[in-house]
């Protein structure tokens, strides 16, 4: 298989955990909160998801379990920030540390165990194309993600629910004054963000690379956090950013396999470097406005 074909075949699946977690965090941030604990929530989702698939053999249970566990953890964040009015930075880090610790604790006796992934569903004819063919052989979650992103975009941009979410983020006092329960809406967004991060983590540990190893999330939560900024809180741009960062990760692997002389550390740093530059440009633009 050529490098290009390898990248095309893997790009969608490699991007999916990033995409799910980033879209979840985007909704959280749209309500005016910032949950820094994505890495921990993904790790917990990955651990719970893996253990569930290992014990039951059911990916439905695994993915749902991972999402549920991370959503519960994110509700701890909501409780701290919305209930006890704690500092969100500290609360996010607490959730992150807790999630990473719990994932390692739950996964400790499953280290290096494997499960079977999900079968690839191929689009007839298109999947036989040279080079590009791999793009059309994907598992069911990747196929489901495509309409999923469109639905999320539609809800956020074209429905009243989306409007309320944005209103809460842009002017919480006004939203409260016209009768919306700001705390409840924010808590809902946080739980959604947690579930998406957990789903992304469970996908990574049970479908993408169906084996458990402590620390397997390996910074994907931080990349997802960066992605939300990179995508300027827009569904479409976050999706494109996830594909781009996913390609970077995959391209780095392929380039190394091909013996390229680019240091892998530079490739690994690129998402973060790009995000810092994006932050500076975006913030400077807003300052001038």
């Amino acid at each position, binding site marked *: 298989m050529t490098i290009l074909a390898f990248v095309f075949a893997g790009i969608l699946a490699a991007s999916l955990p990033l995409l799910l977690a980033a879209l979840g965090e985007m909704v959280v941030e749209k309500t005016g909160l910032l949950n820094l604990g994505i890495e921990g929530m993904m790790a917990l989702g990955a651990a719970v998801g893996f253990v569930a698939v290992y014990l039951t053999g059911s990916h439905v249970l695994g993915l749902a379990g991972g999402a549920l566990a991370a959503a519960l953890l994110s509700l701890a964040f909501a409780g701290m920030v919305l209930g*006890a009015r*704690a500092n969100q930075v500290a609360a996010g880090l607490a959730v992150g540390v807790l999630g990473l610790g719990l994932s390692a604790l739950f996964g400790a006796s499953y280290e290096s165990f494997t499960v079977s992934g999900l079968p690839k569903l191929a689009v007839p004819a298109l999947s036989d194309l040279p080079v590009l063919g791999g793009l059309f052989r994907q598992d069911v979650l990747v196929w489901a993600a495509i309409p999923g992103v469109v639905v999320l975009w539609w809800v956020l941009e074209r429905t009243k629910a989306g409007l309320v979410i944005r209103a809460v983020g842009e002017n919480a006092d006004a939203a409260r004054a016209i009768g919306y329960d700001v705390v409840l809406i924010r808590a809902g967004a946080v739980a959604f963000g947690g579930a998406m991060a957990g789903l992304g983590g469970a996908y990574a540990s049970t479908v993408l690379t169906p084996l458990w190893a402590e620390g397997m999330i390996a910074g994907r939560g931080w990349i997802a956090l960066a992605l939300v900024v990179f995508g300027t*809180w827009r569904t479409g741009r976050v999706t494109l950013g996830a594909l781009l960062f996913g390609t970077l990760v995959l391209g780095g692997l392929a380039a190394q396999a091909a013996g390229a002389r680019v240091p892998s550390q530079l490739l690994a740093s690129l998402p973060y470097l790009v995000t810092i530059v994006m932050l500076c440009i975006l913030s400077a633009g807003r300052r001038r406005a």
Partner: protein
Amino acid sequence: MVRLMRRDRASRSAMVAAPLLALGAAVLVSLILFAALGKPAGVALHALLIRPFASWYSFSEVLLKAAPLMLIAQGLAIGFRANVFNIGAEGQFVMGAVAASALPVLGGDPSGPWVMPLMLGAGMAGGLAWAGLAAFARDRFGASEILVTLMQSLIAVQVLNYLLLGPWKDPRGFNFPVSVMFPDAALLPILLPGTRTNVLLVFALLASVLAWVLMRHRLTGFQLLVGGLAPGAARYAGIAPRRAVWLSLGLGGLAAGLAGAGEVMGPLGQLQRSVAAGYGYAAIVVAYVGGLNPLGIVVAAVAISAVYIGGDAATVSAGLPVPAVEVFQGLLLAFYLVAFVLVRYRIARMPGPATRAATPRRGGRPRTFDGPVPSAADGGP
């Protein structure tokens, strides 16, 4: 209807009670969790809480680990009190370690009394420069220091990996990703004979005194405090938030860089990947659980360090996996943040809505990145 009423003045008794309550709750939940996982919970807790203080040597190990935590947390707390959220101390710590290592790695086999101060100075400069980049991005472009310092930490670890896998790898190190062993002239003097506790502990305690003086007696401390508690009033009084940004990040970077230098010049004795073991993140827990108060941070640094040392013991005696320490730390911070509500608010049965002051904002993006966050606590008084 039960409401949270903001106190005019933070409750002192609650400030002492909050960390104790949090400790009790964290211990209780860990106990239940360990028992549910089939581990001997009692043995584990004994190892976590008692063993670190049970022998002189293990207590000296607690002090060894407490020094960098204390040093970093004192630097961070200055910023947190001023609502400047430097959460990238890990990166500043790593860059301090890298900068300090430059001399022994590149300078052959240096000896003489100037080696140690030069390396410590390089460490501080490394941390300062790394944090300075974030201060510049915040000051010049208004980029959130929360995200910039976080991303910088992830980059710093890659810089460390690059150096240790490439140009700085010890040629006689059997291909392990470590630098050369430092010469004796580059190692910090031992403070307590027969242990590994070195003079970094003295630096950390000095920094604690300085932090206390800065916050209580100097105008700068007052300015930073006002800037954090009431940004509008601070601007009105002519205290530039710019100064708070540069001072907070600068002091935070300086302290973290010094701690990083101390780690490679102390227990490690060379630059290795384990230098990025999470001191920078744990110090955030220390800063908060210490109530963002210089004295509280000294106590919290020793307590959190003890949990690390006890965690090592628990892996042996109770078969706990290493990350159990992380779980305990996360629980402690989470419960502390919840308990802290008692310091700032009193719980009252009052009719009528409890409103929070609206913060002015600009632009159409979520307000998260416009500096102070909507429900952000200001930390200590």
